[in-house]
């Protein structure tokens, strides 16, 4: 009874194989091109009324949808072709207007009974589906500096109220430096400011130069960074939602980076404009004629660089206080942006405008951008450096007609499209700290399809070659190995689907590589069986010994490879990680199928028979 498995072992193996088949199934149902409609705000309901309007507009344009579902988050309209989908998206967007987000999507077709078991297909990566990948970096020094600027303002007020005279309060070298006018007031000032600024700062007194230095503690700096990342994440998510993308990914990566992936987006330039234009607004009064030049600044206009205006340095309020913005039309049917400020912003605005009716107020549009400069270093190598710069332009300069409150409008923001883009940026909120693009990848949808086709083709060809070879070389044992190989692929796909792994091109390459290497264990076993038989063992003993002795070798060899795959996973990002996941899972499943599944087949077919010679 050398080559028999106990019943429980057989049942366990069969159960695992059944699991593999069921959970890999959803990948075989092809997806429908679809359009997803959801409310722009969570309060907007997408109900029967919207559905009727959609059906009407589609019918009017001779597009027949395959099905319309209520997906819980909104409506999902499925189509028979990509062309229908694209055309319908435009039509539905026009029909429903700004209150709804209309996004292209791929709708899965997994049957309900599979869904109920938690089975779902693998997600396709951007390289297979088309879309945009952005890597953004948050400018941390700028975030810290912003915080220090606020503290500087606070320090000035506190000192003034405590009647302590200071010469200068400036932000320098990542710290707040306060030069006091009188040496004897130094300790008083330090006490007052320590109390006001709290325990986020450590203070230092330099008697000789009469300077107080407040620097942020390590913990406080980390907190500011975390906050900057979080606020940027929220803002980016809002903006991505405004763009109308079906399954966007906005995720922190490392200490100061954010990954944004937008599958299916075609117009990357628009996406980038909305995401990347880390715009903010500043509301400032225009300078009075003859004002002290130290207190004014000149800026040019956004639509006409030759025109400029002089503004006061003092800022009334910024885009941070903007709570909503929308596009409207004025009496002359020109586009305008309606702005609503929050409580604090409204108070500041009314304070500033109350006594300045008749003066002009400017809205300054601030964009953070990067410029890449190529310089040549001492060794003659070309070095690329990223130089962040800030562009400030006036987008409107208008006379204050009356005291402004928390709700007012800006006219002269350009065309309807420009006005709506500006309002979109304002509505989605201002960014806490500037962000810069450090990486961008765009894959066109046709390239994605090409990658899928080629990937599948090479898997098929590779698989057929290996199967034929094993069959020719090992005959009956080749059949066992091939069945094992088939289940290996099934289990691998099932595990990847269940884990929610994203299939990428390197992932497919990992599957192909696994296929080649998966037969290794069987080759080892079969070679060992032959060898033991050659040394004079009976066929049954040889089979038994072959599996036993090859096991240690297989374990050692696979564990070391697994070790390398895990290292690959821990250091890699994006595609390399995908490859490592596939490779590691492949190693595990191939060990199972090569050792257990083939053995089970051997036991079933040969276990009860008398063998005079090895069938290989």
């Amino acid at each position, binding site marked *: 009874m050398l080559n028999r498995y106990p019943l429980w072992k057989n049942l366990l193996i069969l159960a695992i194989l059944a699991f593999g088949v069921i959970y890999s199934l959803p990948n075989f149902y092809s997806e429908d091109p679809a359009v997803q409609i959801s409310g722009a705000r969570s309060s907007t309901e997408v109900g029967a009324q919207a559905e009727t309007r959609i059906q009407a507009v589609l019918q009017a344009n001779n597009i027949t949808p395959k099905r319309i579902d209520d997906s819980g988050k909104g409506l999902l309209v499925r189509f028979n072709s990509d062309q229908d989908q694209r055309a319908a998206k435009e039509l539905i967007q026009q029909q429903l207007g700004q209150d709804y987000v209309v996004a292209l999507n791929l709708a899965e077709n997994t049957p309900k009974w599979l869904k109920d078991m938690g089975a779902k297909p693998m997600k396709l990566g951007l*390289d297979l589906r088309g879309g945009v990948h952005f*890597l953004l970096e948050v400018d941390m020094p700028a975030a810290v500096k912003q915080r220090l600027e606020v503290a500087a303002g606070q320090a000035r007020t506190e000192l003034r109220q405590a009647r302590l005279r200071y010469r200068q309060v400036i932000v320098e070298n990542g710290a707040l430096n306060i030069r006091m006018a009188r040496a004897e007031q130094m300790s008083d000032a330090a006490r007052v400011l320590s109390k006001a600024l709290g325990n986020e700062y450590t203070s230092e007194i330099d008697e000789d130069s009469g300077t107080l230095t407040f620097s942020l503690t390590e913990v406080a700096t980390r907190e500011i960074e975390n906050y900057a990342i979080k606020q940027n994440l929220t803002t980016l998510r809002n903006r991505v939602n405004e763009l109308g993308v079906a399954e966007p990914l906005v995720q922190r990566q490392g200490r100061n980076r954010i990954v944004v992936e937008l599958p299916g987006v075609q117009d*990357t*330039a628009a996406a*980038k*404009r909305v995401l990347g234009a880390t715009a903010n607004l500043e509301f400032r009064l225009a300078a009075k004629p003859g004002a002290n030049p130290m207190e004014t600044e000149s800026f040019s206009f956004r639509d006409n660089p030759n025109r400029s205006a002089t503004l006061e340095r003092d800022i009334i309020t910024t885009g941070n206080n903007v709570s909503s913005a929308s596009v409207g039309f004025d009496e002359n049917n020109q586009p305008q942006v309606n702005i609503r400020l929050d409580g604090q912003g409204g108070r500041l605005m009314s304070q500033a405008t109350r006594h300045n009716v008749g003066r002009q107020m400017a809205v300054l549009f601030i964009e953070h951008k*990067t410029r*890449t400069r*190529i310089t040549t270093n001492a060794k003659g190598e070309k070095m*690329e450096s990223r130089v962040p710069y800030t562009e400030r332009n006036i987008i409107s300069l208008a006379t204050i007609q009356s005291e402004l409150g928390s709700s007012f409008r800006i006219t002269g923001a350009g065309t309807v499209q420009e006005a709506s883009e500006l309002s979109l940026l304002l509505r989605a909120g201002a960014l806490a700290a500037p962000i810069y*693009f*450090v*990486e*961008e*990848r*765009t*894959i*066109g949808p*046709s*390239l994605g399809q090409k*990658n899928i086709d*080629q990937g599948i*083709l*090479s898997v098929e*060809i*590779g*698989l057929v*070659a*290996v199967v034929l070879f094993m069959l020719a*070389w*090992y005959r009956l044992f080749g059949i066992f190995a091939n069945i094992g190989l088939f289940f290996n692929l099934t289990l691998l796909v099932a595990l990847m689907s269940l884990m929610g792994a994203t299939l990428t*091109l*390197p992932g497919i*390459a990992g599957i*192909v*590589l696994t296929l*080649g290497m998966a*037969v*290794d264990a069987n*080759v*080892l076993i079969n*070679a060992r069986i032959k*060898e033991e*038989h*050659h040394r004079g063992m009976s066929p049954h003993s040889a089979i038994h010994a072959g599996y036993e002795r090859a096991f*240690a*070798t297989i374990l*050692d*060899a*696979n*564990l070391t*490879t697994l*070790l*390398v*795959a895990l*290292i690959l996973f821990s*250091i890699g990002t994006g595609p*390399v990680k995908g490859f*490592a996941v596939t*490779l590691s899972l492949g190693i595990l499943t191939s060990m199972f199928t090569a050792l257990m599944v083939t053995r089970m087949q051997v036991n079933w077919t040969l276990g009860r028979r008398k063998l005079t010679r090895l069938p290989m």
Partner: protein
Amino acid sequence: MSKLIQLNLDFMGKRRWAFALSLLLVVISLGSLVAQQLKFGLDFTGGTLVELTYEQAPSLDQVRNRLEQAGYEDIVVQHFGTERDVMVRLNQGFTADVGQEVRDVLAQDTPNVHLQRAEFVGSQVGDELKEQGGIGMLVALAGVMLYVAFRFQYKFALGAVLSLAHDVIILLGVFSLFQLDFDLTVLAAVLAVIGYSLNDTIVVYDRIRENFRMTREGGPADLINLSINQTLSRTTITSLTTLMVLVALFLFGGEMIHNFALALIIGIGVGTYSSIYVAGTLLLRLNLQRQDMMLPVKEGAEDDGRP
């Protein structure tokens, strides 16, 4: 075909030739790596890449001229896969829609040109990746060395790591010598080769360990030679099946994983050679003796800390 062929080739007898060949390859590789480095792809250098598809095969010179006229400097224009696919690499900084801009410039000559892919990588990201890749390779080698030292013996660990280093250096050497694009997928391939080649080496070492423990006749050279012969059919068959799928990937997998497949093909070729000729030879050089393989004698069992 199913006959058991017990080969008895004298691999160890030719070890001086193999050693000379390996040394030559490693020296050439290192020389090329020092002299002209690797031709790092966009992932590592940073920069901008635009891939376009034409309806009819364009003339590359015309594309290059047109872009230079439009003010793009320092550009590389080449075919990517088919005659109709063109890849443009720019070193200049990135503006919001350089992909579209390049397409629009080229569409002045031929209207039917489509943007397939546009990539921009900051130089800083590239530098980090280089560092990570290098660290990854070293960590992988160190991890392997520890594991093998633990499961086998330190001479095996040294032998395994040296033969891995041999494979990696030659693989990188080929990429450097022929100035093939070394991008992120190739890095993944190099790490996969480390895994694969290690797998091969471990199988041979496993047999060497077994033979050193079980067989009484023959010196170290004979036993190593016997072990290599015993595992030879497995080594070649596995390499063959893996190479079959890789060739399929190389021929049909598309341009984006061309170099990935190529790196694996080279790596597995070199890895197979090294597990036959290099890994065993190294053990001899490290003076592996039968007593290195003796199971630990239990004399320490009495004084294992108990009074």
